[in-house]
């Protein structure tokens, strides 16, 4: 995308597009993406990492406009509708939301289709990974999310926010929480 100013003499320059901007569809796009990834088997932490990643423009747009608490609430609600219980262990303090980020509707899944092991549910999977929650510092305040920061936030230790634990490798993690490969392109 060109970063310089518009050149109004450029016959190809796009000077304006009429849009139906009065409609805020942030909630709908948020809900849609959560459900799409949820259906594919992603857990709540992995989906939140996508919203935090500026490379996913549609999802990141919602987070930037509405804040992370809004996204977390939407994730919790969507998981609850699909019968999955989500609990955020590291609630973030964001302006404009005092809601406890915990789903209160829906029922816990009776069985997990992918595995008979109850540990496969999103919540318990995260719980199992975060055996040392005290090692993680919760995100203290809202800051603009940088690409590398957002990758690092999907920490393997189970934290929803940035982690300063020495037990976790310093290498950046991919959106699935794995160490990002060192690419030599």
């Amino acid at each position, binding site marked *: 995308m060109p970063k310089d100013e518009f050149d109004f003499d450029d016959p190809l320059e796009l000077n304006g597009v009429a849009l139906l901007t009065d409609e805020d*569809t942030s909630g709908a796009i948020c809900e849609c993406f959560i459900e799409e990834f949820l259906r594919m*088997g992603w857990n709540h932490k992995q989906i939140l990492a996508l919203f935090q990643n500026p490379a996913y423009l549609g999802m990141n747009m919602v987070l930037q406009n509405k804040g992370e608490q809004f996204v977390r609430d939407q994730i919790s609600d969507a998981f609850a509708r699909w019968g999955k219980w989500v609990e955020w262990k590291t609630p973030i303090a964001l302006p404009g939301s005092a809601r406890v980020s915990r789903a209160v509707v829906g029922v816990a899944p009776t069985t997990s289709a*992918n595995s008979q092991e109850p540990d496969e549910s999103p919540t318990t999977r995260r719980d199992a990974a975060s055996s040392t929650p005290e090692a993680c510092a919760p995100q203290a305040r809202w800051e603009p999310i940088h690409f590398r920061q957002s990758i690092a936030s999907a920490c393997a230790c189970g934290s929803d926010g940035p982690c300063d634990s020495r037990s976790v490798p310093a290498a950046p993690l991919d959106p699935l929480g794995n160490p990002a490969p060192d690419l030599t392109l």
Partner: protein
Amino acid sequence: MSNVFNWQLGREMEFPYDAAFPDQQFAFVFNLNRCIGCQTCTMACKSTWTFSKGQEAMWWNNVETKPYGGYPHGWDVKTLDLLEQSNPGGQTWAGEATDVRAPYGQFKGKTVFEAGMTHIGAEGANRVLGYLPTDEEWTAPNRFEDNPTGSQKGSKGRYFSGGEALPQHKTWFFYLARICNHCSYPACLAACPRNAIYKRPEDGIVLVDQERCRGYRKCMEACPYKKTYYRPTTRTSEKCIGCFPRVEGRDQAGGGLPMQTRCMSACIGQIRMQGLVQINKDGTWKEDRYNPLYYLIHVAKVALPLYPQFGTEPNGYYIPPRWVPRPYLKQMFGPGVDAAIERYANPDRELLAVLQLFGKDQRICFRYEIKEGTKVFENEIRGKKFALYNDTIIGYAKDGTKIIETTVEEPFHVRNAKHANSI
């Protein structure tokens, strides 16, 4: 002009030739709720078919950001505008949706063929109403959209700087992936003065005969989707060939079975499904209840044609994005939008299973079968009762070979870090 029946419009319409339908028709469904605009499909097509000299600005498959973008620039807005000028205020739909002969009601306006008849130019009435995009409009796909660009020269092992500072979208948008729709009433074919464009009787794929084409570009002017391209090195027009060797089953990877096109197979988001559907003598779809395309388009009605009002009866269908304002979607996909989104957002047991077929195998799925599984949970979603069953869906190839078997609650595998970038 002949009178032909267009089931997408629910009525007869004018077309320069008599109706002639293939035994089977190439068709596809794209789920726009899942497209992330990664352009993997675009590059799969480019690296297979259009990598030669003279094809630089030729993108048989492209993904554009709507509503800002389009390739060529403004292709749909310009055609819609021409139709509106031809029939001011008259481009409307009416009537009730009925059966397969009028699933979206009836279109009361003018198609590109009908509007062309009253569009008198220097050579008399046009066969098709259209316009020829300028060279500039073809040359830069995704210009002013959201792909990172820069003036830096790339180098090995280094990313472009500033990529993380992409412009932030302030409002709704979505990605629209497009290929040639291999229309049942192709405007390119109708406009060709050389009869160089033909529709294959075996699969309905529309091709340009390179021996007959003389590069008059009437097809480029006529195609409302702007999916034919001029090649200056050969002075002929070229277009998407529907990867016909693969559809014929001649790609060795398919073991002799019909395969989906390269763009469908390469889609990492699994948003695409392509197949062949049976066609009746009158051009409507023959009932084939367990063909996944027939199910999505005529039973569940979640997939809708792109700009059906153009009148070419395109064979590309889209599951509309849920978050986009309805007036925009209705202009793009017709009056079936509300019902499609309602159904997609509140899927029933069969739809949830069929959606799992997308992107699972390169071979074309001709039939599916569902084996009932256990109930996972019951709940209420958006005021409606919902129950999730972990059914198993099985897909079969043309010869009955089982090619897909998966469950609604798919296993989720994460490749470990050591092999994250290996094949």
